[in-house]
């Protein structure tokens, strides 16, 4: 199917058409911060501000807290119940390429060995409509991780800003089907295609932060035992969970029960390897020291994940850099590490 376009003024109508079929999520500031939220049927204000959300869209598939099951205790017997689900189809509008890429990375863990019964069905039920970025932050470095601000690789349908309009490209069958569901889309002209190409090239150049990922796995392996280096790198980290919880590729979780009288619930909730308690056992804690936790975080993303799944668990979204209250910067960390390994 040929590419199409949509005038920005008609975005609400397009969303309206799709919302008949899907539960729709858009970038929103309604809840006090930029995050993906359910569409209210009219809001298109993200067109004016959308650069990046604070909370990544992974939260739709892997929420900060999620009921795993509930149970009822009857004398000594337990009856377990799964949470009900209507299997509602979802559509995420305006997902950025680095966040869509992150979902592809997360899929690997949630599919590995045992299929995760909470994340995967939601993933399967959701179509992704990407919106290319035109104004990368100074914290962004997606181009260093093989991505681009306008990459369509991990979405179903891709929109690129061409001025008053978006060029609309069907990437997958699901995406092309979306195109046929609305009459708001017009045929794209050759001039539109050219403008989209120019936007893509220009935006790529706007990503100025660079990270050298060549041989990074090997370099991290050889730096693993250099305690001084990791102590220096970790010095200013305050061991909060911002960089991990808000990372689109971090997936660690905790599992906890709650019991009120005879009715209980088991939850899973976001957890972070930055917290000392994360690895705490009754008698021992293998990562009680901060530098070990920081080392694990860095190595997990750039060494261990590639060893397990052939992909770096970072998409260069820059949230960890921008949100860190002490400006601990992963790109500087890796530069420092590489300099150290090279100098011996």
């Amino acid at each position, binding site marked *: 199917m040929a590419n199409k376009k949509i005038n920005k003024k008609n975005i609400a109508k397009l969303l309206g058409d799709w919302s008949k079929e899907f539960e729709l999520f858009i970038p929103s500031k309604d*809840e006090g911060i930029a995050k993906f939220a359910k569409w209210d049927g009219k809001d298109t204000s993200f067109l004016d501000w959308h650069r990046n959300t604070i909370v990544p869209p992974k939260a739709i598939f892997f929420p900060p807290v999620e009921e795993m099951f509930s149970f009822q205790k009857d004398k000594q017997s337990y009856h377990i119940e799964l949470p009900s689900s209507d299997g509602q189809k979802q559509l995420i509008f305006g997902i950025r390429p680095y966040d869509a890429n992150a979902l592809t990375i997360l899929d690997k863990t949630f599919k590995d060995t045992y299929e995760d019964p909470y994340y995967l069905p939601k993933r399967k039920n959701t179509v992704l409509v990407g919106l290319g970025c035109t104004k990368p932050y100074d914290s962004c470095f997606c181009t260093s991780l093989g991505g681009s601000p306008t990459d369509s690789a991990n979405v179903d349908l891709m929109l690129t800003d061409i001025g008053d309009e978006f060029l609309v490209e069907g990437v997958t069958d699901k995406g092309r089907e979306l195109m046929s569901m609305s009459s708001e889309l017009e045929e794209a002209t050759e001039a539109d295609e050219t403008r989209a190409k120019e936007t893509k090239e220009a935006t790529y150049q706007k990503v100025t932060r660079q990270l050298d990922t060549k041989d990074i796995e090997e370099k991290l392996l050889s730096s693993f035992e250099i305690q001084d280096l990791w102590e220096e790198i970790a010095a*200013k980290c305050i061991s*909060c969970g911002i960089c991990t919880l808000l990372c689109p590729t971090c997936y660690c979780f905790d599992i906890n029960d709650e019991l009120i009288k005879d009715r209980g619930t088991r939850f899973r909730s976001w957890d972070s390897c930055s917290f000392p308690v994360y690895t705490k056992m009754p008698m021992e804690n293998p990562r009680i020291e901060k530098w070990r936790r920081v080392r694990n975080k860095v190595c997990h993303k750039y060494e261990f994940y590639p060893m397990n799944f052939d992909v770096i668990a970072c998409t260069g979204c820059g949230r960890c850099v921008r949100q860190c209250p*002490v400006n601990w910067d992963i790109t500087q960390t890796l530069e420092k590490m590489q300099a150290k390994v090279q100098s011996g």
Partner: protein
Amino acid sequence: MKDRETEQRLRREAKALLEQGKVDYIIGFETGSLKFTTTPLITKDKDSVDRLIINPFIVNNLSEYLTELKGRVGIVAKGCDNRSIVSLIQDNQVKREDVVILGVPCPGIIDLSKVEGLVGKDRDELDDVTRDGDKVVVTVDGEKKEFPASEVLFDNCLGCEFPTPQEYNILLDESSSLVADKTASRKGIETLEGMPQEQRWDFWEKEFSRCIRCYACRSICPACFCERCFVEESEPQWIAPVPRWQDNLIFQVIRNIHVAGRCTDCGECERACPVNIPLRSLTKEMYDLVDDLYHFKAGMDKEAAPLMTHYETTDPEDFIK
């Protein structure tokens, strides 16, 4: 310009402290990796002290790091940070003789979120932000815009009673001329006070629904020095280790009580919060309550006993019914 001179002096003093072996570490600020940001510099290396800076963006309360460093530390401290250090001394977390305080009289720190709001641009799109006396000059797209400092300083800075460190080894500049404006610094709280109770409850429900339990508020707070926080206690379990708004709210309420008499209104908890929960509305209210009820201001006297560890016969007791 004045910052430049202070900065030069700081570097000289810091270098001398390391060279003479008077301290093992220097903690100060260096240029951050994003526009306008500064970042903590924690170093043993006398050459890296040349990276130390003083500017209107040195926001972190560096006393946070004192409890984890072993040895003697030279530390850059603004007025509020200085009080946090004194408070840590009161709590026996830090020994006075182990710290060399490099005091920086503070004219107030620029809140980039406020600048963003005023000019309608994100911080990385601004060409320059400079402080010029009572004004802050913002350059956007080559065009200069002037704002009164009171419009762009952090709320807690506006209400700062002690911008100049009182307990120092070296004071790097003359006293700050910042004048406290209590009303301006209680703006958020006054809005809340004007709400009926129901509405306040709804307000906090909405705010705490966003909390993701990253614990940045706790991690960045120098007064939160417990090795094991009540949140992680499992026997008994005080609150569910799950980010639901009710538990999130209780976490903050208890944290507030724990830092009562220790909180110096440095504002770091609210600044660190990645989901913009107005935490200072709680901590500042507690700060003022402590002052009103007990005439106690945190971190003013290193010899004084910590507020919550002692009592005086004149303490108010009419809350006991």
